[in-house]
């Protein structure tokens, strides 16, 4: 306890949290979704996850070695990026593509911009979008039990019925980590209890997206279709994105009001991508697009310093 007391200039209250511990907590929170992913999609999923994590960590170490920087792989951020990327990949993806995505995420998106804390968009999602644009066919080839099948969202888009209870548990086609809403919610609960993330971004995201879906339903003559809403909430990458990707410290706003604005932007963009776009899914593009808006959002939502509230009256 004495180590926490320093005689020095402020800040006086220190926390034991370190980057490494936070990253480890997020990885722990992702374990349920990972286990469900492996049990639903088989050992190939485990192979993809391990290979992606190792290549992300190796890419970071090699790049920092070559550029004579301090090697920071022990903080776990590269491993987390690898894990998140792997959870965003379909199980049928060839391994070399996953390696390429991890290397792109770490080197181009993270290290070229200055490493941890400087990346302007979520590296894992940027890696996924890189793969999505580069290998559209392979990235959209979803299999379950070895059979190619459409994702629930694609089925919804083409007007077919979906089984919401299956989507909630996770036994549907999709990327490795996104299918099981319950496992992701369990992980999110762990992060909330540990105070790693706050409710504001995910709640604003999910609430604004729900409102978008309801308005969409009303305007397209569906009426209040709760099943449709539930399917959209459990389907695709929304849960994974809202709880684990949108709350990334580096690429989300630091101001309290800014986080709400960020969440609302995410909800609207996801809705636009899902309902007006060509593809059934839109969470990844919505998040990396809103990552780019973060500096503007922060600039517009700087809280007033204590005692300076009459500045507006001048």
């Amino acid at each position, binding site marked *: 306890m004495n180590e926490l007391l320093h005689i020095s200039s402020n800040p006086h209250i220190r926390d034991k949290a370190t980057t490494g511990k936070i990253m480890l907590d997020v990885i722990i929170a992702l374990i349920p979704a990972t286990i469900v992913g492996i049990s639903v999609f088989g050992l190939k999923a485990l192979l993809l996850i391990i290979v992606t994590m190792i290549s992300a960590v190796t890419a970071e170490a090699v790049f920092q070695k070559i550029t004579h920087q301090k090697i920071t792989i022990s903080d776990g951020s590269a491993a987390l990026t690898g894990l998140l990327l792997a959870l965003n990949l379909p199980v049928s993806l*060839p391994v070399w593509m996953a390696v*390429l995505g991890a290397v792109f995420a770490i080197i*181009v998106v993270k290290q070229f911009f200055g490493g941890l804390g400087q990346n302007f968009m979520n590296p894992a999602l940027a890696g996924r979008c*890189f793969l999505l*644009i*580069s*290998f*559209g066919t*392979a990235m959209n080839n979803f299999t379950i039990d070895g059979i190619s099948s459409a994702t629930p969202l694609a089925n919804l888009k083409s007007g077919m019925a979906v089984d919401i209870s299956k989507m909630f548990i996770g036994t549907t086609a999709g990327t490795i980590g996104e299918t099981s809403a319950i496992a992701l919610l369990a992980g999110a609960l762990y992060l909330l209890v540990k105070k790693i993330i706050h409710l504001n971004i995910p709640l604003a995201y999910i609430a604004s997206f729900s409102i978008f879906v309801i308005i969409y339903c009303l305007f397209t003559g569906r009426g209040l279709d709760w099943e449709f809403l539930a399917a959209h909430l459990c389907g695709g990458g929304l849960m994974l994105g809202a709880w684990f990707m949108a709350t990334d410290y580096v690429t989300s706003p630091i101001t309290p009001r800014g986080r709400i604005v960020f969440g609302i932007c995410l909800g609207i963009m996801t809705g636009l991508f899902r309902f007006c776009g060509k593809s059934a899914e839109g969470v990844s593009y919505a998040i990396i697009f809103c990552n780019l808006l973060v500096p503007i959002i922060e600039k517009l939502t700087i809280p007033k310093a204590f005692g300076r509230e009459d500045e507006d009256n001048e």
Partner: protein
Amino acid sequence: MNKCIERLYNGIIKENPTFVLILGMCPTLAVTTSLINGAGMGLTTTVVLMLSNTIISMLRKVIPAEVRMPAFIVIVASFVTMVQFLLQAYLPSLNNALGIYIPLIVVNCIILGRAESYASKNPVLPSLFDGIGMGLGFTIGLSFLGAFREILGSGSIAGVQFIAEEYHIRIFGYAPGAFFVLAGLIAIQNKIRLNHGKKVKELPSCNGKCTECEQKCDNPTGKEGE
């Protein structure tokens, strides 16, 4: 004649419009999806640049300074129109691939830049060689960019495919790929051309008196006691 060779060197290496001046980015990023397109765009620009530099240099004492820009544009636009007619007649496939970017050569900042900064102040022959040098520099830049994008994005070179379809990284065929490859090429040539990133040679203590100093250091100020 020495002057002319110096102009070629300047255009191709020292002030390469693509990698050093970073001029004419619009066609550079837009049409370099393949080696043929890149080289075709570069050579088309080279032809226009040579002709416009020559004519502008000939007319440099006739054109009044106040209206030089419209005059340059008229000259450049005439040549671009001629070149486009020739492409439409003899290379229709290239003309289709380059599309709107052929007429846009009129406002390419390399051409106006060379007209303004070189051809309008210098004799005809060096101006011609300045045009050739800059044009070739542009062609080399675009060809490299096109070749890399074609290999990575569609697994072929000059239309000959040698990588199977499933290994194509298609993002390199789109606009983001152009930025990736351009940035990579600029980084590589900066690494070669400049001393950045190399370790500074350790020298014994410097007393600041460079005139008395016999060490050949990288930073001679030539002034004492600074």
